[in-house]
């Protein structure tokens, strides 16, 4: 991959990443040696069957979990060398995260939620950047509201804005549209797309939805804890085709076993 001079420097990379739960016969290899570069300024989707290790990969790369072996680099920093305190600071300053649900602190307003990582870091927010993000997320008139007063889609957009507020090296989103209807989902996805195109952000998203994946520049397919396939500039049909193939493969394996 290093030979691909056209591709920009990676915002984050995983090198032979392994994560094993349990031991002996009952050991589960959630990640069985994943090597992956996530290029800066790109919107990457990670897809794969349930249990294939997508979330585990995200958590390891976002410094929320520690791998059993292998290395993770975010913005050139090797996470393996960091202590909890530095990992926390790294999450706060260099990584944005959007979960499937429950992304916001219920006692804080939308704008306070957006500013939370910055405030925790004690950094002065870059007002211009914030304005841009808030404008893009389209919630200027809702900033004073608490999460319970926002719709699910609005909450996820606030979460995206929060993830971007600190200008992170990379934003991880684990099924950010999983709980949303297609319209709200589209709002969130187009916002993520814009943040890559217009602001040069790096976004990685786990999704099961081919439509969602079609917003991305690249789709990486995972199966049984390994990267098995990838497509660049995918079309929806292409993605569906790959997914079906993967599922067939998996089905064939289970019948074999």
């Amino acid at each position: 991959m290093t030979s691909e001079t056209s591709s920009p420097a990676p915002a984050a990379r995983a090198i032979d990443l392994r994560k094993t739960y349990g031991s002996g016969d009952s050991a589960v290899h959630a990640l069985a040696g994943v090597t992956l570069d996530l290029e800066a300024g790109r919107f990457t989707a990670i897809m794969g069957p349930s249990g294939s290790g997508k979330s585990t990969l995200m958590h390891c790369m976002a410094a929320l979990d520690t791998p059993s072996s292998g290395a993770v680099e975010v913005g050139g920093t090797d996470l393996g060398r960091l202590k909890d305190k530095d990992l926390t600071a790294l999450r706060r300053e260099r990584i944005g995260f959007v979960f499937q649900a429950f992304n916001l602190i219920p006692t804080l307003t939308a704008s306070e939620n957006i500013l939370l990582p910055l405030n925790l870091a004690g950094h002065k927010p870059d007002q211009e950047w914030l304005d841009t993000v808030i404008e893009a997320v389209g919630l200027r008139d809702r900033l004073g509201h608490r999460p319970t007063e926002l719709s699910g889609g609005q909450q996820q957009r606030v979460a995206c804005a929060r993830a971007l507020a600190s200008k992170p090296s990379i934003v991880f989103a684990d099924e950010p549209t999983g709980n949303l209807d297609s319209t709200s989902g589209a709002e969130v996805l187009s916002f993520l797309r814009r943040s890559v195109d217009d602001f040069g952000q790096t976004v990685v998203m786990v999704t099961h939805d081919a439509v969602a994946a079609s917003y991305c520049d690249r789709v990486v397919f995972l199966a049984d804890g390994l990267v098995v396939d990838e497509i660049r500039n995918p079309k929806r049909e292409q993605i569906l085709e790959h997914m079906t193939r993967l599922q067939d493969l998996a089905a064939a394996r289970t019948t074999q076993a």
Partner: protein
Amino acid sequence: MLKLTLRNLLARKVRLVMSGLAIVLGVAFLSGVLVFSNGLSSTFDSIIYSSTPDGVVRAEQTASFEAGPTQTTQTLSPEVVAELEELPEVARADGDVVGIGMSLLASDGTLVGGTGAPTLAFNHTDGPNMAGEPPMLLSSGRWPAAADEIVLDDAAADNGDYDLGDEVKLLAPFGDSERTATLVGTAEFNGGGTAGATLLVFSTEGAQDLFLDGADAFHQVSLTAADGVTQEQLAEAADTVAPSGFEAVTGDQVAEESQDAVGQFLDVISTFLLVFAIIAVIVGGFIIVNTFTILVAQRSRELALLRALGASRRQVTQSVLLEAVVMSAVAATVGIGLGWLLARGLAALFRAVGLDIASDALTLDAGSVIISYVVGVGVTLVAAFLPARRAGKVAPVAAMRADSAPARDSLRRRTIIGGVLIAVGIVFAVIGITGGPGPDSLWVGIAAGIWILTAAAISSVIGRPVLVLCRGLFGRLFGTTGRLAGENALRDPRRTGATASALMIGLALVSTIGVLATSLNASVDDVVDEEFTSDFLVQSTNFLPFSTSVGDDLEAVDGVATVSRQQWTGAQVDDSTVFVTGNDAAFDDIYELDMVEGRQQLQGNQALVTTGFADDHDLEVGSPLTLTFLAGKSLDLEVAGIFEGSETTGDVSLPLDLLADAGVPRQDTSLSIMLEPGADAVAVGNALDEAAEATPIVAVYDKQEFAESIRDQINQLLYMIYGLLALAIVIAVIGIVNTLGLSVIERTREIGLLRAIGMSRTRLRRMITLESVAIAVLGAVLGMVIGVIIGVLLRQALKDDLTSLGLPLGQLLVFLVIAVVVGVLAAILPAIRASRLNVLEAIATE
């Protein structure tokens, strides 16, 4: 359902332990106090019964003077004793000599005992108690035989650092005050110990030398009944022989009278302690309410599922109540055990101040155990009742709802009811202050009770401003972390308020007491300022009379112009006991009484009385007044003046020499010293101190020292009360730990999210600590405001005694600091728990 309840309990061990702890402590205090009180009275009972014979011949009216510090001068001759012994109903008669006011000095000259428990001096005889056993048992040596021999109780010999054969130093209340005797043995009451009293046992001859000027006579006679003769028959027969002025009574009656006299004093101690135990239990009850409310709220989904599966409302309510019963029964059991230890602790504490309780008297009796269980389980059930009912009301559909918080009944209703109750309290307080019927302080006390309980119920409403202030302050000081903490405290105001209530009750009481004590101190200063008109005052540490030789010594000090002598004693007027003060002629030169009628200077058989005494006995200037003294002699007096009561004299004031006529042995209770003009007060003060050194029971005070000595006593009591209220505060801390712990569990996901987006462990801990501090400060501020208001009103109601209002501003500040510390401490466990949460697992929690 029972199985499910038990499983529920076991599934939440930590919560169980924490909520149980509040009950454990409350019950422990209660049962500890009950066991201690029982031990206290049984200690005295066994001493009283083991030292009382079948019957006693004694001076009439002895019983009514039980507490008086006066020595009787009426005596019985040995012939009477012999006559009594000859009666067929009497097996043996022993003449007793009883000395009052004798003190024991340690080998280094300091006073032994003298605080709290009395020093008893008497002669040793072989007469048995009513059970036929010797009333006292020797621990070492032998009984005194010669006049200059003495037996002490074990503790006294120990404290005085005396061994057998040593010369024991004594301080007599009469004449030549310094005496010595050789220690020949040590002993204890047959009933066990001495309850802290110091015992001086002499031979009959020795006691007669000391207390009867060597006359062969007795103060009373102990009778032992012949075989088959009842106590009543014995007393009846002895009465025929008793000379006039004496009476024969049964041993049972003597014992009962002693029990009554001691009982009043013991009741004060027991009631005092019991009040604090009840406070602790009430505070514990608040915590139970809160814990169960939170538990029910957190489990409402599960409860709804039960309902959806067909459990009836009653079954759900009962299952929660059953949980409460099981938990409180376990907690009460632990509490009773702990209480038994606490009783030992209390006993050790009282031993330190001179009240010795036999440790085998501290037994868990059935009564205490039953009361403790009933209170522990009862309070828990009452406290859990509302939450349990709320649990029954959870609708089955709630199982399907994402938001598990049950519908809240509006705060408005509470606010309105609370407002009405506070208004009712105000009415009571106004009645109290404007002098309604009955004692003013009772009215204010009722108002105080209403206010405290109402404030506890609506603390969520009235506490809001405090929490908003905390949020602002924390936000400013600690940024986002502080802001989040403030928000969390405000998020469920009812929970925060209920948690703070426990602390509020404790601090309200502490502040009330603080205001009263400070006012009392200020008032003491007022009184001393106004009434301490001599240059120096000499009194014994426990206000017992002392030998006139002390005054003689002080008179001889250079620079002393006058020593005015005053003697206090008790006398009977129309069946009630009154404090009578004999003043010498110099008194009028030093003290100016606030005369309402008549004049202060007295001639012949004249007396002054206070306005209160005059009202009680319908006296005016010129009225006759008859006082009967312990010696049986009476004084016929004429009221020459009525004065406003003061600390310088008792209710009746008369010329000192009249007391001697009434058969009261001449002693001094208080000496007022005036210096010669131009004398150096400091130098003379030192000389006076030196002259009084040989008599350690008295102290020489100047104005400042005197006020200080009173303040010291007040503060000692104050700190004791603070110490007892500290338990309520400990229980309140448990409440905060509990609520925070439950909140952390409830907010697991949120905490995970905060950690995920970059909140460090340190900040997370700080956030929880600040929330805890907010709760504690809320409780403290509400409690202090209410406490100060109550204190000020009570002071107003008691303004006759508490002439000045004092606000303990320094102490209030300390309380606030303590509240903050309490908050920090209470947060330790929940904060550690929160910061240990695994980020990923926390996020994944439903």
